[in-house]
């Protein structure tokens, strides 16, 4: 398991390093070729860096960290992601489990899920702002909605994929429905549930940036990006994107670690071991 971690970390560092070098080259070439003056909607904007070189990025990053804007934004946005994740999973997972176990519930809910499954967060944004106000609640509910749909499908599929032989074996050993749910269905479906949580976590980060457009206030990563887009300041946008990327990577690593811990019992292909 440790070997797997180290190799993944190496790969991440290497591929990100390559990306950084490629960007460095592109920005060097770009600063010579790209216009500094661009037409935007109704007027010209002067002195724009479309591909800011490393020096500008560094300067911007130092400013954002020293002023406290970036650290506080990270804290606020991360908290929203985790709250939305917890709430969404707390609704989605039990609903998915019961949908898979109770035929009548599936019959009723399945079309709803299909219907709402791909509703983009941006479409729900004004609705949630109207219904739940401009505060924290609508932001977290927006994230939770996205998470709930993904984890519902994960839990549903996880339960559906429990091999019949385990259910029959448990029944023939005299297990009650409750015991089967706790000791057979739940552990057998857990790997798929955790996989869906991992996907939902990434989606939560995508959604938080949108959610933070609701009565946007500092500090938050979503507002930082929106503001930088309005100026426009490419270096701020770049720092914001990199920050979110690093946070997503860290979250993903944590989710993967949790998955590995919860599936120690599974047979693994030699490539993973």
């Amino acid at each position, binding site marked *: 398991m440790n070997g797997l971690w180290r190799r993944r970390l190496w790969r991440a560092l290497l591929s990100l390093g390559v990306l950084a070098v490629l960007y460095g080259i592109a920005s060097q070439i770009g600063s010579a070729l790209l216009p500094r003056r661009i037409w935007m909607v109704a007027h010209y904007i002067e002195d724009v860096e479309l591909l800011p070189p490393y020096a500008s990025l560094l300067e911007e990053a130092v400013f954002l960290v020293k002023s406290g804007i970036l650290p506080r934004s990270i804290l606020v946005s991360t908290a929203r992601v985790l709250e939305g994740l917890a709430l969404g999973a707390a609704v989605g997972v039990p609903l998915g489990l019961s949908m898979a176990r109770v035929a009548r519930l599936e019959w009723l809910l399945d079309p709803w899920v299909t219907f709402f499954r791909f509703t983009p967060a941006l479409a729900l944004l004004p609705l949630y702002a109207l219904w739940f106000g401009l505060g924290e609640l609508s932001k977290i509910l927006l994230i939770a909605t996205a998470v709930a749909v993904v984890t519902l499908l994960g839990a549903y599929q996880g339960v559906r994929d429990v091999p019949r*032989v385990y259910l029959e*074996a448990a029944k*023939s*050993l005299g297990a009650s429905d409750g015991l089967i749910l706790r*000791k057979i269905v739940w*552990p057998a479906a857990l790997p798929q549930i955790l996989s869906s949580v991992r996907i939902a976590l990434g989606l939560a980060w995508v959604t938080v940036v949108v959610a933070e457009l609701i009565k946007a206030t500092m500090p938050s990563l979503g507002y930082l990006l929106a503001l930088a887009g309005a100026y426009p300041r490419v270096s701020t946008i770049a720092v914001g994107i990199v920050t979110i990327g690093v946070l997503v990577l860290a979250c993903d690593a944590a989710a993967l670690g949790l998955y590995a811990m919860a599936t120690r*019992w599974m047979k693994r292909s030699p490539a993973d071991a």
Partner: protein
Amino acid sequence: MPEPRRRRLEMRDVVHVYEGKTATRALDGVSLDVHDNEFLAIVGPVGSGKTTLVRIVAGFLRPTSGVVLCDGAPVTGPGPERGYVFQEEAIFPWMSVRDNLGFGLLAKGVVASEREKIVAELVRLIGLEGYEGAYPKELSGGMSKMVEVARVLATDPAILLLDEPFGLLDAQTRSKMQDQLSLLWEEKRKTVILVTHDVEEAIYLADRVVVFTPRPGRIKVEVTVDLPRPRSLETRFSPAFLALKRSIWKEIGRA
């Protein structure tokens, strides 16, 4: 047969049809009694409905018509008095050997200390000391089959239903498992139905062998195996054994 033997299982005109685009008649009126502590083997070609019949006895399937009585009461669903050993791997991969062995006891509501005692005894019985905390992925195919058999025995069921239990094992392991099962049966004396396509396995283990016809399954012939017990490697090469084997193969061939 002079000795009065109690009927443990009665199957009366059991018919089973699998519904689908084309309905498949798997069993076509099977009537069969199994006596208390009898070891019965069912052999027959693939698709002769042998598995369907034991799945009905287990309560996993409802017969299309006919009835199965267990100790005089109709079977309505699965239950711990009829232990079932599956063709495929059926021990729970997310549970340790210990938890697998104790699962039936847990379901029965046996307290933890008592459970531990019975599990420790089972571990000794199948010779898996030191593997109590291991996950099934660390066991060989033969070991995990033995764990499954022991898991079923933990709650001391009256009837054992074995559905091609050793079908996925290699020949050497299979013959070792047959010896272990034979010893277990000598010690515990239970009513057993063994489904197998291995004629030799059937003769080696059973008191009586029932031969099924190809689909739809019907009883073609019953053969009593009166080889002395305990049986051993020598039994497999005795003239009586070979004669039984020849006559059963002839019956299958004439199908």
